[in-house]
């Protein structure tokens, strides 16, 4: 079972000293059926004055903090060690229409619905970053001919997004609307995840957003660039009674061994790795560095 060490630094620099800073981080990975978190810690530099770790509505780990002493910059650093347990996708899955119909049925009084079922209902609805977008639905339809098994269809959609869209860092902002991504045919992982989610929801399916990291394999013969990696995002689709299955439209296939999960929600807005409000100042910059390295077998001591 492969293990990965994650080091994620977010460094804010302010044009002038800030005396009051409130922040919320979702930078500590969660346990999932495919992942065990062995170690994790979050450090603030300078240290926070008040800090509270909790789980949010979806079970993600959240750190709320404040800094009340003047500071010229803030570094939020998360370090974790996680173990991946990869399971293959099932070979067969029901036709996608069947799943959509199942999700549209009222919840019966007889059997009490579980968390996943409620979350699935929530993940069928439009959300702030994934509004109802007919162009996204039109795009997705080509992957969903009648009767096609759900997972096959989603895999096809992910592959098509990978093929049709150019990955261009900095081409889009956090709030770039989907319509623009569709029109320009480029974006980053977050845009592609939102696009796939919008298509699936448009078809009446339940899709959620996953925030995390990707182990990037360096091109052959070149050294691995430390800190050059960014945080990653992909999506998952819900199969009743079986759970959530993850696909990565940026890379055109199912999520694999190197996909390490931080948190999930309806869209980026629910799981932003780091957000904050400051008083005073205004001009500031943010520099992010992510390193995901595989721990060689037998070197698990930490």
């Amino acid at each position, binding site marked *: 079972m492969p293990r990965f060490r994650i080091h994620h630094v977010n460094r804010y620099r302010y044009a002038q000293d800030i005396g009051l800073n409130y922040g919320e981080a979702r930078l500590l990975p969660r346990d999932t059926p495919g992942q065990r978190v062995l170690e994790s810690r979050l450090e603030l530099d300078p240290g926070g004055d008040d800090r*509270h770790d909790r789980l949010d509505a979806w079970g993600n780990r959240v750190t709320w903090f404040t800094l009340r002493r003047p500071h010229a910059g803030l570094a939020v650093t998360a370090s974790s060690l996680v173990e991946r347990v990869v399971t293959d996708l099932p070979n067969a899955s029901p036709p996608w229409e069947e799943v959509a119909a199942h999700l549209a049925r009222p919840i019966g009084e007889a059997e009490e619905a579980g968390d996943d079922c409620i979350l699935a209902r929530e993940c069928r609805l439009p959300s702030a970053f994934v509004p109802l977008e007919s162009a996204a639905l039109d795009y997705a339809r080509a992957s969903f001919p009648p009767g096609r098994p759900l997972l096959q269809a989603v895999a096809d959609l992910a592959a098509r997004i990978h093929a049709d869209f150019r990955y261009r860092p900095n081409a889009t902002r956090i709030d770039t609307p989907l319509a623009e991504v569709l029109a320009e045919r480029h974006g980053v992982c977050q845009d592609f995840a939102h696009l796939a989610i919008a298509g699936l929801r448009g078809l009446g399916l339940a899709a959620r957003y996953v925030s995390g990291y990707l182990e990037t394999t360096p091109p052959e013969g070149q050294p691995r660039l430390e800190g050059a990696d960014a945080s990653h995002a992909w999506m998952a689709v819900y199969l009743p009674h079986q759970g959530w299955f993850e696909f990565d439209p940026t890379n055109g296939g199912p999520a694999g061994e190197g996909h390490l999960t931080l948190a999930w929600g309806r869209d980026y807005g629910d799981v932003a790795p780091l957000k904050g409000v400051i008083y005073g100042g205004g001009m500031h910059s943010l520099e992010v560095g992510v390193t995901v390295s595989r721990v060689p077998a037998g070197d698990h001591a930490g």
Partner: protein
Amino acid sequence: MTLSQTSLFPDTPDYHSLPDAWDEMWNPQAGVRPHWRQLVEGLAGLDARDWSARNQRIKRLLRENGVTYHVYDDPRGYTRTWELDPVPLVLGAGEWAAIEVGLEQRARLLDLVLRDLYGPQTLLRRGLLPPELILGHAGYLRPLLGALPAHRHHLIFYAADLARGPDGRVWVMADRTQSPSGAGYALENRSVMARTFPELLESNRVVRLNAWLDTVQASLNALADRAREIPQVVVLSPGPANETYFEHAYLAARLGYSLAQGDDLTVKDGRVWLKSVQGLKPVDVILRRVDEEWCDPLELRADSRLGTAGLVEAVRRGQVALANPLGSGLLENPALMPFLPALARILLGEELLLPTAATWWCGQEQEKAHVLANLARLVLKPINRGYSCETVFGADLDRKQLAAWKDRIRAQPHLYVGQEPLTLSTVPALHGGRLTPHRASLRAFLVARADGAGYAALPGGLARCASGGKLSGQRGALNKDTWIAPARLPQKGPSATPHRRESGLLTSRAADNLFWAGRYLERAEAVARLLRAVLDGLWEEETTPGLGPVLEALMGLMGYAPGECGCAERSDLSACVRELTTQPDRPGNLAHSVRALLACAYGTREYWSVAIWRLLDRVERDWGSHARIRSRGEAGRERTDLWLGRLIDALAGLAGLASETLSREAAFRFFDLGRRIERGQTQALLLSRTLESGLAGEAERESLSLVLQSADSLVTFRRRYRSEPFLAGLLDLLLWDTDSPRSLIYQLRTARRHLQELTATGQRGRAERLLFSAEERLHASEAMVEDLIVDAGERQRLIVILRELGGLLASTSDAVTHAWFTHVQEQHVLLAAGSEG
């Protein structure tokens, strides 16, 4: 049907009820309904003059009490006066008792629904509420899930919009749970009616409202977590620009709470603190009038400037209670209505008592089909208020619009409901000098009881009516007091302890506003006096040569370079007056000072008495009427003089009243501190310009006389010296005379005394040290006065000292600002780390 038997209104005895509606007063078969008879007889006893007088009185009381309802984007600006119809809505005590029980049940039910949805969500898991109905509503605040505190009630305030159908049944049209507004207006309506028709309230045995606020206060106090003798409660308001700001200030004043805005609060160590002039004070309970989404820029809307970062976390830690709690807007979802009867059976084991307007949620297939098939007949509502579209009546839509609605509903059916339209009952209201039937609705208000035993309803409510067929949100409705009568029990006299409780903490913001109200009041008065003196001089056949210093001081105060305003040229005096009084963007201009004074007063309205409000109202109206005259170029000498005189009187009256009615606490001290600093600066400026002018002989006497006149000290001077003005005497009176409230030394000493009182620690702050050194400088200069007339050098030194004093006072003002007032630091949302991978 007509009501011709009784002459309800002398000039128009006929009241025609409408054929399609239930009339609240008139029964076509039996005449005036029994519970209206007493009122109708009472009103019939009034003659036309009486009617007119009472109606005028209502208007005057509302205006003087500053009862306003701000309509966004209204060209008339902030202060639209509330319109109250003289005829109340009367409900029989028996019928009301049934309504009350129904409302109370509904509040209990909604409270349980709220508790479940932010807790175990059994209603969703068992399929009792479709998840989309809740999860797709904007009021479902995910950061608050699992964060409801362990109070007996979560829903503290509940309001319902009620209407009566043609068959006489009362229906619930809408539930208000987010931050229900209107109770303050209802209470104010009653107090105006009680002063206008005291004998009718008495003879009708109208149930009184005064006990309800006690229940509100007890309920809010009970929310405080810690065993504190007097919990700290604040009213959180979006500020004076909000449509119901009057009510926020009204409740704060009536309940003795501090009125705060988002940046008056800060979250530290997981709890909420109020920035007061006594430092940070812990807040236990927040009466929330900021819409929930806007309350915390960190966890709710990032673009909000009305909230307090960290508030959600403080709630989560149980360190502060909000009424209503964040997340309660979820219950305003009209799609919940059709599910309530079943929920009442399951959660309460009771049948729902009050009927709810028949509502179909389009998130269900059959219901959607029904709505689509009956679109042109139904009322169409989005489940989220204030989103993409508003409530519409299908009957008002043309084919194209109907098609657009169909598309909208088909695209996102879970966001819409269709509702059976109700033909509203009518109630007589005064319109165009006669009583005509108006369509009516009633908002009723409930508050959770402190002991957990259900809810208490305000015995009455806010009735609104309109002459058209419909009632729309903000526009065009007329308000009515609501009378529940006759009371069964003998009523207690006026509350023995009037609702004047100890005042809340003085927030830094309020102190800031009071300080500036003082400064602007003084500035406006000084400018008006100087202006009058200048105009007096200018309007003479020949320009008075002694005008120089006063004109210079005026220009200095108003921030003009000499000659810039054109006053020195007599050719177009009206233009000059216009220039000096109509540039609201120019600090120092009279228009600016008056407007800024009104804004500061409006922002601290919970501190001002009715009498002061009356004067402020007069200033505002005078200003408006003269502005019209000025704009027509009709502001001749006499009119302008008269107007300035009235303005000066009103401003002086305000200052006097404020000194008498603001209690001698911090509020008064900040207000008076502002006045003293401003007046000190004005005097220093005026006198230095006088010394600089170097006038002699007749011109000097004339100039000194004008200076004394604009300092309101001519009479004092004459009485004291029994002579024509002379420089040494003038300086003595206006600089060093410790007894004269116009002297500079008096301003410095009074200001310093205020600062001493305000500084609890006894430590001398920077502002106080500045004033102390100003006093020393002024004292030292007193010895020079003997030589002033002969020695130009001494005169020059005094000019320098006066300028220094002006500077010291400006620094004092800065020091006060720094020491006490909110240093509002601009709030910024940090760049969020996106997922770039």
